[in-house]
């Protein structure tokens, strides 16, 4: 059963360049992550699905799946240098059997790759650093290719979200679901630090209204022009929208923090309230 649905940023600077950020902004973001951790714990979640957009840690253009789901007993990370990312090496628990049941249900409507081996990069490691710092909640990683075009159209991310919801509701475990990614950003390029706040706020407005038509309006050429390559990661947010099934959303924190290279965000859907 799905008991929590939210989104957050995952930029490596959030932990790796923490000392270079405006302390007020950084501490505000960290507090927001803390509140998200508490909300997930309060939901009684027994497992956490993380819909991420990894960055060539496991998946590469030699064999690039549009969608992949982890099916392992454990996941090691971070794949990046620990000092660079500011996160110590860890082993996060998985739940192979739960993954298998979720995958089987998702596959009824959405084609997937699965992976019995998966090393977390910052796309998952940064959120977990804040949300399950004791690594006491089994993780089911889900990846959407947002790096190596051609990318699956955003409508397919919506379909994935609907399938994940159906799958989560089909198992007895209490399931939390988060999507992680940037909104507008130009990560790891000369334009790192540029953030299109107006575009981000418009996107988050659509996300909170959970307006399917408005969310599926985006195409990659426009997204790239207005929101950079990092904007392709809105797929993870859109997947969570679909999974939340018309529930209303709230942005708990949004602030452009240039040294973190993204408009830092936490937001969630209220699954207990009737759809808008």
């Amino acid at each position: 059963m799905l008991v929590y649905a939210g989104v957050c940023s995952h930029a490596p600077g959030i932990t790796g360049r923490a000392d270079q950020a405006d302390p007020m902004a950084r501490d505000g973001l960290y507090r927001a992550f803390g509140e998200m951790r508490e909300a997930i714990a309060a939901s009684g979640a027994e497992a956490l699905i993380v819909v991420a957009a990894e960055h060539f840690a496991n998946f590469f253009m030699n064999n690039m799946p549009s969608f992949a789901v982890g099916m392992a007993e454990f996941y090691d990370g971070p794949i990046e240098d620990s000092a660079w990312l500011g996160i110590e090496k860890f082993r996060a628990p998985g739940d192979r059997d739960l993954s298998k049941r979720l995958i089987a249900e998702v596959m009824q409507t959405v084609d997937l790759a699965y992976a019995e081996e998966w090393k977390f990069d910052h796309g998952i490691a940064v959120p977990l650093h804040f949300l399950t710092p004791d690594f006491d909640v089994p993780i089911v990683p889900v990846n959407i290719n947002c790096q190596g075009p051609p990318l699956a159209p955003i409508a397919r991310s919506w379909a994935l979200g609907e399938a994940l919801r159906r799958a989560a509701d089909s198992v007895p475990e209490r399931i939390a679901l988060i999507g992680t990614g940037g909104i507008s950003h130009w990560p790891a390029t000369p334009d790192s630090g540029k953030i299109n706040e107006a575009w981000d706020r418009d996107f988050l407005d659509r996300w909170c209204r959970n307006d399917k038509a408005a969310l599926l309006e985006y195409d990659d050429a426009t997204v790239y022009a207005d929101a950079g390559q990092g904007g392709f990661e809105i797929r993870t947010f859109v997947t969570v929208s679909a999974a939340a099934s018309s529930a209303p959303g709230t942005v708990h924190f949004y602030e452009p923090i240039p040294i973190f290279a993204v408009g830092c965000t936490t937001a969630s859907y209220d699954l207990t309230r009737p759809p808008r």
Partner: protein
Amino acid sequence: MLRAADEALGSGVRQATMSTCGGSRPGVPRCVLSLYYVQKFLFELNRSEELQTSYWADGRAVLDSYTLTTEEEDALIEPDIGLLFHLGVNGQILMHFAALHQIEWQDYLQRMRDGIETHGPVREGVYAVTGYEGTHDPGRGPGISAGSAEEGGSGAELAERPGRGTGISAGSAEE
């Protein structure tokens, strides 16, 4: 989009690349754009401490098993971060290569800017295909593509989109 980017690449760039092609392995095509293999090498290097050890010991020998041009091989040995970015290497791979070489963050960003300044717009890959936005050159201003705009490609059209450049934080230049 793709066609515009293709035109933006232009025959001049292709010929320049052809003339710098090398490679000594028998049976391997000598004059191909091999961005894929540059990135494949960096992807594998980022994942494998064993490969990193071999790279430090004898980089040329390691690179021999990848289909690379002389230009690419030299850039990977140097390392020439600016040239690698110009060639089209994805920053999500390149930033770890820079970190491996103890190049700190602001220096990494500057080297990419210098690479574009020296070599021109990104030649291939995700940034080139979609019309690379450009550098922080205040003379160009936001929203002007450093890539295909001059060629009358997609960048120029995109630059005319209303609302572009507004509400954009200038970013790391301010830090």
